[in-house]
């Protein structure tokens, strides 16, 4: 369970929200409306008011880096700082084939990866930490239809398998209705549930 309690982010109304295990929340809104800032607050990357609980563990109860291993944020643009793909993984990568790669991908040089490959690899890199909550900021923005579908399937399988939670930020209404159990939207500072999208 993920619970946002009186979460305060500049420019958005105070948010109270509970997400049940296994659920995926779809979040949309114009660029600049604060979706990314909301994800960053949940991952404790920015200062914010209020509290976030994951399985009754409050953000402030654990060290920040431990929190971010449980509550993983996937930024819209991934960053890589070492030479090969595999060096960036904290643990053995699973689901490599599920995103259309072969086992040799770990020895690939970062400089030869396309932006779409990096985006898919960044999802594998995040999942290698076995997070309980996935905060996905436009996870398929650089991907073609086939790869988007692979990512959707992988994320949904992961949620079922680990009883995990996802917040999926995206612009594609059709995709959000495929992946999300509930949908919310941020616009003009208000955070509202989308009923019958």
């Amino acid at each position, binding site marked *: 369970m993920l619970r946002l309690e009186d979460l305060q982010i500049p420019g958005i109304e105070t948010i109270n929200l509970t997400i049940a295990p296994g659920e995926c929340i779809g979040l949309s809104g114009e660029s600049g409306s604060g979706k990314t800032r909301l994800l960053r607050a949940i*991952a*404790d*990357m*920015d*200062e914010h008011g209020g509290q976030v609980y994951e399985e009754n563990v409050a953000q402030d109860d654990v*060290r*920040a*880096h*431990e929190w*971010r*291993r449980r509550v*993983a*944020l*996937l*930024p819209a*643009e*991934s*960053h*890589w*700082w070492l030479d090969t793909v595999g060096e*960036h993984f*904290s643990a053995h990568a699973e689901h490599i084939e599920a995103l259309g790669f072969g086992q040799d991908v770990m020895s690939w040089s970062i400089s030869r990866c396309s932006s779409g490959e990096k985006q898919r690899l960044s999802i594998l*890199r*995040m999942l290698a*930490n076995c997070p309980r909550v996935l905060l996905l900021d436009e996870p398929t923005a650089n991907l073609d239809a086939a790869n988007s579908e692979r990512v959707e399937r992988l994320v949904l399988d992961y949620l079922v398998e680990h009883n995990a939670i996802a917040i999926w930020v995206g612009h594609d209404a059709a995709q959000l209705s495929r992946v999300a159990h509930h949908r919310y939207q941020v616009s003009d500072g208000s955070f509202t549930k989308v009923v019958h999208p």
Partner: protein
Amino acid sequence: MKTEFITLTAPDLILASLLVLALIGLVARLQLGLGQTLSIAAVRTTVQLLLVGLILEAVFNRARLSWILLIALVMMVVAAWEILARQKRKLRAKWGFSISAFALFVSSFMITVLTLLMVIEADPWYTPQYAIPLLGMLLGNTMNGIALGMDRLVQTAWQQRAVIEQRLMLGQKDSEAIRDIARDSMRAGMIPIINAMAAAGVVSLPGMMTGQILAGSPPVEAVKYQILIMFLVTAGTGFAVIMVLQLITRRMFDSRERLRFDRLLKVPR
């Protein structure tokens, strides 16, 4: 042992200055755009050194601890200020000055005092002929080290802030996320003195040693002093750079391991 040495006359110095003037003329002719900077620096060095010569003569004739401490204080303040002035990304001034001054005090000043008390053992221990050049050499080198290390750390961290945040998002500790950059910065701060030690005597004759030999000291005596200075400078610079890098990285992240450049620099929003 006192040996006669050859004093320089004003015409001697004018002769040397003609070389610099020739260089300035050539630079201007080739439009290399360095003429003004060179002229100002040449004038500065002349005026500053003459002034310092006069002050030192006055102090050397009358060794008073309070005078020497005052001079040491001025030297440290100027060094701390110079460190800040050399930063490409301007740190918040009060804080940047404080950590620089603190590091200079703890390393250069303390090492100078310890050396005077335990190694040189002049009578009195603060004899200015020893105290002031020693502090000067430590401060000068430490200042360089701090300025280089600090500049590298802040500059690289700023350029790579997205990478640092990515590493934090993957659950790395703040110290882990900045480690590569801190290591690089330590290197940047220490390379000049490491190079100086490695090349000393083979490629270059260190300035202080050269000076002593020109003034008539036996080479082996000059060498012993030079080795002492090299070790002191290396230790002083190393400790100071570590201190400053630690203080900056602590300030760069808050208690929740968030990257907080706003605490370090004036950041445009």
